[in-house]
């Protein structure tokens, strides 16, 4: 068994058994559900908005080359540099080179999952650069040396007590149980970092082809500071994030806010058209856009699942997923967790080691329904299962399904088997779920229904007395 799959089983078992933890996550989500529904209801037609969003993404993704080139031409004309990175290594190397050439000492970052994907912090720290996450949640998990727990809420698994302990230990601050005070402690630390940093690294939520802009969505203001004060701005951008027109943002910005955090609009939605222009008072002298493939083109080549490139990383599918809510973000062992992570990780990191994630699904379809851009998530999970079974068939599964179809195709055999089953079931009951039970993998967490003393056919014959 692949170790990733074994890790997933161990961790998900541990988290699921922790009822307190599950209740804590559930409580954290409850406010979100309420606000999300209120804001959805505010739309004249949320379903219509989803349809249009899906169509715009369809247009953009299916003409990706055209829109990327348009974006590149426009933003380059404004003085930005666009670097096309085929994989994580080339993206990291480029950013290291920019930092070294400019004698950068201190780097401030705003939230970017793409940088988690390419393990950027490690690479920068190894070369001796100080790197500070400025988003509060990211800063907390960085101090704990943990990856983010959730795409949008990185530290939602921690209690204020744990955060206070952490700040006491790492920052020497006074203990407090007020989220407000804890936030102000982080604010004060970060203020100093902003004033000192000479490079800011951000993610990107959308790129606009028509006007050559990148758009960044955030609540705290940390991304705005990251992109205003340091003299160099590096923006990581997955190739799939381009939109054709500026006005498309008037649909996507409110949808991202509503689906992602139950807000009408996120606090700051900022569009950058290049580095500081002549005559402007502030802003970075250099803007580097690192356009990342890192196997996104594999996903693009899979026409069946291509729509998953339309993901705007809102996290809505995680928030409604019964699996995510029970096993939590760390069980996945991936940068992108939850339903979307289970769909795309096999494409980004190989089917063989990551197909098990698609099996961890109740196929309830809650994710598909929640997705603002209508990605067919739960069907993609099924397709991954099919692809997984095709590429590395499980012999045991093959034998059982062979047996099953033999049985179902031959009434006499079926009768014989159910007759035997009735005799042996009481014996199985004695060992149910124990190590002696041959069906243990299944019965360990489920009840096998008791076979009826008589089959339907037998009852029919008896009750109707053979009448036609």
């Amino acid at each position: 068994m692949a170790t990733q799959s074994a890790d997933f089983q161990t961790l998900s078992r541990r988290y699921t058994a922790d009822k307190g933890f599950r209740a804590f996550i559930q409580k954290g989500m409850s406010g979100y559900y309420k606000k999300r529904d209120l804001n959805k209801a505010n739309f004249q037609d949320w379903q219509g908005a989803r349809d249009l969003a899906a169509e715009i993404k369809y247009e953009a993704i299916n003409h990706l080359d055209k829109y990327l080139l348009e974006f590149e031409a426009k933003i380059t004309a404004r003085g930005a540099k666009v670097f096309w990175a085929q994989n994580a290594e080339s993206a990291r190397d480029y950013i290291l080179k920019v930092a070294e050439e400019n004698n950068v000492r201190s780097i401030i970052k705003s939230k970017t999952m793409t940088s988690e994907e390419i393990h950027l912090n490690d690479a920068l720290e190894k070369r001796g650069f100080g790197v500070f996450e400025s988003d509060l949640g990211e800063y907390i998990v960085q101090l704990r040396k943990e990856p983010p727990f959730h795409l949008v809420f990185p530290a939602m698994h921690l209690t204020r007590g744990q955060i206070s302990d952490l700040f006491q230990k790492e920052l020497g601050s006074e203990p407090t149980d007020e989220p407000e005070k804890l936030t102000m402690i982080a604010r004060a630390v970060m203020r100093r970092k902003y004033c000192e940093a000479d490079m800011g690294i951000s993610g990107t939520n959308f790129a606009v082809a028509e006007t050559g802009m990148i758009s960044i969505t955030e609540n705290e203001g940390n991304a705005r500071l990251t992109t205003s004060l340091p003299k160099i701005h590096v923006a990581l951008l997955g190739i799939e994030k381009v939109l054709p027109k500026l006005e498309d943002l008037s649909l996507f910005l409110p949808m991202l806010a509503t689906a992602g955090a139950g807000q009408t609009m996120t606090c700051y939605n900022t569009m950058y058209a290049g580095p500081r222009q002549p005559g402007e008072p502030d802003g970075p002298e250099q803007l580097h856009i690192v356009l990342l493939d890192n196997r996104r083109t594999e996903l693009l080549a899979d026409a069946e699942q291509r729509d998953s490139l339309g993901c705007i990383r809102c996290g809505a599918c995680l928030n409604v997923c019964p699996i995510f809510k029970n096993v939590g973000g760390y069980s996945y062992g991936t940068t992108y967790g939850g339903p979307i992570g289970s769909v795309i990780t096999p494409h980004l990191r190989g089917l063989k080691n990551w197909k098990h994630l698609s099996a961890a699904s109740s196929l309830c379809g809650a994710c598909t329904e929640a997705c603002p851009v209508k990605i067919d998530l739960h069907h993609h999970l099924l397709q991954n299962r099919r692809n997984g079974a095709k590429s590395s068939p499980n012999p045991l599964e093959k034998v059982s399904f062979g047996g099953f179809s033999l049985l179902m195709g031959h009434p006499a055999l079926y009768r014989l088997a159910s007759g035997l089953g009735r005799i042996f079931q009481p014996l199985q009951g004695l060992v149910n779920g124990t190590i002696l039970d041959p069906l243990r993998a299944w019965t360990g967490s489920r009840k096998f229904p008791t076979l009826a003393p008589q089959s339907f056919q037998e009852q029919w014959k008896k009750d109707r007395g053979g009448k036609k």
Partner: protein
Amino acid sequence: MTGGRAIILGRIREALRNNPAPRPHTSHSQSEAAADHNGHAQREWLPKVGETLPERIDLFAKISEGLTTEFHRVPTMSAARDLLTKLAAESGWKKIGSHSHHDVDALLEGVELPIVRTEKGYAIDNLESCDAGITGCDVLVAQTGGIMVSVESAGGRALSVLPPHHVVIARTSQMVPDLTAAFEHVKQKYGKQFPSFLSFITGPSRTGDIERILVLGAHGPKRLTVILLDS
């Protein structure tokens, strides 16, 4: 360093060639709208905005309340000045940041506090230690309770986010119905010469990163005041 431009473009074209994806299951026929839409298609689905200016101002005021944006409507510039003087006294401002802008200059007439002006550049620490940043804006967005700022209307990138209190002066003629109208406005105003920074500010800075509990003033301003002046 050269990068993989040609390779990535090649892979994209290869992936898309003769390999159409199934169309999204959409209940409305919006494919053409998306392929060549005029940017207005979304108006049909997004939250409703009133037709008249008073309705729009009411909506902006209502959303502001939910966001804890402090919204004031004043009839004249001298009333706006009185309001600012009161704010400065109440909050004990010692130093403020501002920039050269028609309405901002008028608002600050007679203010005796030291002022850090950003239009010609500034020292970060000097701006950071200001108690408030006073700026103009491009437009106000009724639909979202948002304020659109740019380099030109807000004195650069940092003035509207670095000091702990952001005060915006706007006129009723700057109220637009929705985000689409805001984008149309900037396209008209700037043509192809966009400023390098455009931002929608929707409420004071906030975070919910600790137990999903709302805290204001995470990294940006804790207070946001909008002074709306009758045109």
